[in-house]
């Protein structure tokens, strides 16, 4: 057990170093948050993770998820009606359920749907920017049971880092407004969703496959996913050159 704990600690340190590196570079907030959700899944006993942020209309919008799948994003967004994320966001407290089957009264929309797609337990941590709650980190587990204390501390630390990333976004972009980093993350996310639609139509593929193309292209050409998405939406980028995983020579 000590070995396993030590292994995890090293992985956490690696993740933190990577995150710190991303922050000083010219960084993409969406990719940063995506990396963070992937680390949540890797380092703790959870199966899926997403960062949800509140948008100007007060809706919780999912901006990054460990697995980029439309059905999963829809599940996260369903929590605009009810769910642990909404509760964490409203109360500013960590919200936990080790068994969703017992929560149908508490979350009549979310609990049945989450179980239907295979999840049994949830853990939501509020994201705080000063005194304000700006969103929540949402974690899903396939098996029942709550996170142990070590995992709970770890995801809390990662949620703090997510908030730092959003503040950093504001500092880097030189904006005066507290919510600008947040706004930028939300807008970038909308661009990515629109770009997925454009690619899905052009290539006759699913939006999930379109996301893989988008990410593959961005990585292959060392571009930010948000920028590639914006260029696709405005047709500044020739969509014909965007294919998955760099399997065709690009124009770089």
């Amino acid at each position, binding site marked *: 057990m000590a070995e396993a704990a030590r292994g995890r600690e090293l992985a956490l340190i690696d993740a933190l170093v990577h995150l710190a590196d991303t922050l000083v570079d010219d960084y993409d907030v969406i990719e940063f948050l995506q990396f963070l959700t992937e680390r949540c899944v890797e380092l703790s006993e959870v199966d899926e993770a997403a960062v949800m942020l509140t948008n100007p209309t007060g809706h919780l919008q999912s901006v990054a998820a460990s697995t980029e799948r439309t059905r999963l994003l829809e599940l996260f967004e369903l929590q*605009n009606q009810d769910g642990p994320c909404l509760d964490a966001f409203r109360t500013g407290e960590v919200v936990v359920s080790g068994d969703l089957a017992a929560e149908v009264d508490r979350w009549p929309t979310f609990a049945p749907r989450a179980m239907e797609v295979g999840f049994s337990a949830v853990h939501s941590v509020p994201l705080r920017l000063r005194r304000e709650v700006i969103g929540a980190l949402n974690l899903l587990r396939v098996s029942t049971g709550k996170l142990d204390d070590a995992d709970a501390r770890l995801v809390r630390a990662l949620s703090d880092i997510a908030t730092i990333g959003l503040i950093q976004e504001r500092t880097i972009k030189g904006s005066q407004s507290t919510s600008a980093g947040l706004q930028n993350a939300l807008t970038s996310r909308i661009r990515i*969703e629109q770009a997925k*639609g454009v690619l899905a139509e052009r290539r006759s593929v699913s939006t999930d496959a379109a996301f893989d193309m988008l990410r593959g292209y961005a990585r292959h050409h060392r571009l930010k996913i948000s920028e590639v998405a914006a260029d696709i*939406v405005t047709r500044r980028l020739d969509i014909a050159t965007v294919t998955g995983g760099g399997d065709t020579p690009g124009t770089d």
Partner: protein
Amino acid sequence: MDDRRLERLLRSLHATEPSRRVLDRICGACAEATAAQGAGVSLIVDRQSEVLGSSDARAARVESLQGEFAEGPCFDAIAQLRPYYEPDLTSPGAMRRWPSFAPAAAADGVGAVFAFPLVTGGIALGALDVYATGAGPLDDEQVSDSLMFADLAALAVDNALGSSTIDGVSLVTEAAESWAYSSVVHNASGMISEQLQIGVDEALLRLRAFAFVTGRKVADLARLVLDRAVRIEPWTDDG
């Protein structure tokens, strides 16, 4: 436009029955100001339409005839993004162009139809139709008056798409800002933007309008678009 005419048009709008819906009042004032026998407003997307307002019962009937047959001057006005006039609905040309609508409207006593597109953000969401019982063209002043009422109607329709009511009458609509929508709606906007080669903002507007006329929630319609079960067609100019 001279101030006196604006004043006259606003007065005619003011003089309409205040308890009626705003688009009914716009239609009523338009018919009154242009000395036409009726006017109607329809929201039209993808050849599906919804009558949103009318000056009187006959205008409402003729307006829904255009929607029912998916033909008539309002469709031409929208496809061409400019007014479309038919000064003689009983002419052989009109009968050929609208084989179902023209005889049906003529049977209801309509002699001429003048359609004005409701343009918002560069796209047409619907049309204002001015109906006359006799044949003959509108004069310049009648045309300018109608254009102004069409602008007013476009404002009212655009507003209605972003709220839940038109003057308290409940409609299946959702918020106008893109923030309010879930990821599938943005996926669908991207898809429609590629299908129709239009911008994503315009695609979202088209999606909202189509949801409105078909009585669906925007997110539900977006899901159908993503599943390729529904396709929003471009306007065509072939009548």
